[in-house]
């Protein structure tokens, strides 16, 4: 049974048809690369899966049951975790506060629940160490460098008890050695049975971790192939439109 099934999904923004009739499915523990030129509709697809947008037509199914994902909160509850391309960070909170946003650690005092500041800071610092990132847990996100911000967004997914993780260009701004860590992370996720959809413009990364690659062009899916049956050259041709479909 497929974990996630996308069925003829179309999404229009006024005059722009960002997605037209896109269908595919993902098995548990599968790592799928999603590639395409800028504006091909990759992020739009991710946002539909994670409940930000509703498809204009088409449907989704999760774990075999047809799913209506009305909001990011619902997606999270289903076990869909996302690293957004625009990172979705609250600038006026610290790195640790952002990581734990929406799933804070608390202790009980009578009927009240208070935050465990120390525990959260410590755990966040551990996560950054794990990612080999030069990010300090108690710095405000507002004053962070681009790569540090991205590290915060990635660290978030580590807390989740997810079934599928959507990563929208998670390695765009981070440095060489952390790219390697993120790829490692994806391997570990796969081993733990968690499916991953990786969007990236970095061909080598996709070929290093993905089992399958889906290529989009101007809103339509032009290819969906096991990684072994394709090559970076073919994928590049598909992305640019030099090759129509495969």
């Amino acid at each position, binding site marked *: 049974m497929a974990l996630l099934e996308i069925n003829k999904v179309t999404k229009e923004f006024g005059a722009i048809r960002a997605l037209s009739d896109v269908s595919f499915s993902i098995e548990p523990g599968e790592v799928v690369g999603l590639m395409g030129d800028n504006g091909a509709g990759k992020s739009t697809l991710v946002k539909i899966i994670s409940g930000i947008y509703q498809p204009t037509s088409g449907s989704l199914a999760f774990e075999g049951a047809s799913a209506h994902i009305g909001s990011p909160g619902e997606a999270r509850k289903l076990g869909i975790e996302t690293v957004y391309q625009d990172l979705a960070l609250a600038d006026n909170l610290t790195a640790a506060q952002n990581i734990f946003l929406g799933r804070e650690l608390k202790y009980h005092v009578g009927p009240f629940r*208070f935050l465990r500041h120390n525990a959260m800071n410590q755990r966040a610092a551990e996560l950054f160490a794990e990612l080999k990132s030069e990010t300090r847990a108690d710095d405000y996100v507002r004053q962070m460098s681009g790569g540090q911000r991205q590290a915060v967004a990635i660290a978030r997914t580590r807390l989740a008890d997810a079934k599928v993780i959507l990563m929208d260009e998670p390695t765009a701004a981070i440095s060489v050695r952390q790219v390697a860590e993120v790829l490692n992370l994806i391997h570990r996720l796969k081993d733990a049975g968690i499916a991953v959809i990786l969007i990236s413009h970095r061909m080598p990364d996709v070929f290093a971790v993905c089992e399958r690659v889906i290529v989009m062009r101007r809103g339509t899916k032009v290819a969906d192939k096991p990684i072994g049956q394709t090559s970076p050259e073919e994928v590049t041709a598909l992305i640019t439109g030099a090759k129509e479909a495969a």
Partner: protein
Amino acid sequence: MMANIDTQGFSNVRRTRFWQKGFLASQSAYVLGALIVIIVVMSLLSPNFLTAGNISNITRNFSFIAIATLGITLVIITGGIDLSVGSTMALSATVTSLIMGALAGASFALFPGGALILALLGGLGVAALIGLLNGFAIAKLKLSAFVTTLGTLSIVRGLTYVATYGRGTFPAGPDKDLFLLVTAGKLFNVVPIAFIYLIICAIAMWLALTHTAWGRHVFAIGSNESAGRLTGVNVDRVKIQVYMLCGLAAGFNGIIISGWLGSAPANLATAYELTIIAAAVIGGANLAGGVGGAAGAIIGCVLIEVIRNGLVLARVDPYWQQTLVGCIIVAAVLVDRLRSMRNG
């Protein structure tokens, strides 16, 4: 928050100095400095300024708007605004008075204090309802907070006039003395009870903002609403709660004022909304959202009241007073520039 666990090993990061973090690095602290200077100047200008009686007056007066300011600070932290606080104060006070009056004439007898409790529940209930409607329109219908609450400003004030045909009401009935005691009384004959309420509300707000997940969500919404939504924060619910709390705070404040006045005139608290918002902003709340706190709100209220009271006591020509109030307010926020300069 514990700083050092994770900055260890960053060769280019020093320990944060005590004045570079927390309250001391906030706008509130700098405005507090300005406030102290103003207090010193005022006490030099008028010998009556620092008398016990006047301090008690000042304490009571700022308590009157400070509770509403706490409420509006919450709204401002989420990046919203509430212009209907003044009207809410009036309607809430009016409803409380009306219920007390009605129950006084009721044929059935209540246990002592019963009428008061019902009246307070009625007044606060109306205030919460106004907040709920504001919050619903803003969070669910996604209307502009400015227009929505400007609408409620007008609607609620209109209802206050309708309810009493413009005449205003006054608290009456068997529980009137009790009502005056719990609103206008003084603890140990010195501390206005309104001030006690303020302190309790402020501590509760501080706890909620800094030590609960809810408070964290309030800041997150103001800082980046869509990020809050994407990380699963129930943005709409928190927003509605915040507007309800703001309404409640305003209503409570209105009831306290009416107790002190012994009356709930229909034009009570007209145009207070700008003063209250100004107090919050002077105290460090940022209308763009994501910044603010209970201490700052109180400091802002004290500043405004000290200026008003001080100028009257210093017998400044009343026509010049208004001009001076404006100048001092601008000067007080100007000190905050010092902070940006110091922090580079």
